[in-house]
């Protein structure tokens, strides 16, 4: 299963992270997985964190307001403001950190996301570019959202996932 392409590069000169990944699913399904809150919430947070979308209007000028929730119940709220949507091919948004009342935290960094989707015989490639104003902003994103998310070993992660499927 895991011969699917995964490419991760950081262009330090333009403060941009480029993530490319293939998925063994057809284009419309992968598009839905990135744009529908009920599917997004199943994978957007790295376990053991959980993604909880409070509201989402997927249209230009619309917004996704969601939280990353830790196992202890700690919540990190964030916002995605959709700036451009070309159904099934591309969408763009600007992210921001917020409080639970949906007030944007202007002190925290914001990044511009661009997502491209393309299918080739059952394999859908997603290209994500995340442009930060400063390289240091990237560090802040790591610290804020996912403090402990990746400390679990992959074995534990697999166990969790297979129990979720039952």
């Amino acid at each position, binding site marked *: *299963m895991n011969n*699917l392409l*995964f490419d*991760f590069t*950081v262009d*330090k*000169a333009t403060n941009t*992270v480029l*993530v490319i*990944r293939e*998925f*063994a*699913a057809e284009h419309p*399904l*992968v598009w839905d*997985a990135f744009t529908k809150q009920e*599917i997004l919430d*199943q*994978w*957007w*947070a*790295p*376990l053991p964190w959980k993604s909880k979308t409070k509201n989402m209007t997927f249209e230009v000028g619309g917004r996704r307001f969601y939280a990353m929730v830790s196992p202890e119940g700690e919540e990190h709220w964030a916002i995605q403001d959709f700036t451009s949507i070309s159904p099934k091919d591309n969408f763009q948004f600007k992210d921001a950190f917020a409080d639970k009342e949906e007030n944007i935290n202007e002190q925290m960094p914001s990044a511009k996301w661009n997502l491209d989707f393309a299918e080739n015989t059952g394999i859908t490639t997603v290209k994500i570019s995340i442009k930060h104003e*400063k*390289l*240091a902003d*990237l*560090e802040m*994103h*790591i610290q804020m959202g*996912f403090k402990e*998310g*990746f400390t679990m070993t992959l074995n534990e*992660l697999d166990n969790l*996932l297979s129990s979720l*499927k039952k």
Partner: protein
Amino acid sequence: MRRDIFQAVADPTRRAIIVLIAVQAMTPNAIAEHFDTTRQAISKHLRILTECELVKQNQQGREIYYSLEIDKMKEIEKWLEQFKKIWETKFNQLDKVLLTIKKQEK
């Protein structure tokens, strides 16, 4: 104000200095020759790099040589690696979600 490696690499001139002195230790004058900027500007960059503990100084006679702290640079790679791991984790989760949905549709 706290200085850290992220500030150090935030500036294009400082990144160029890092590349230069990664190869060999250099004096401020030798470094300045590579840039269309004043010796003072280079000194300021070197001061910031020193405060970030990304370069070390070595006195040889009258000259001060600047060289790179390689271990410190590795910190940058380390946190980028963390960011990569987060995406790996998320995408592995998405693989399973997609698989589940595909099964349900059949």
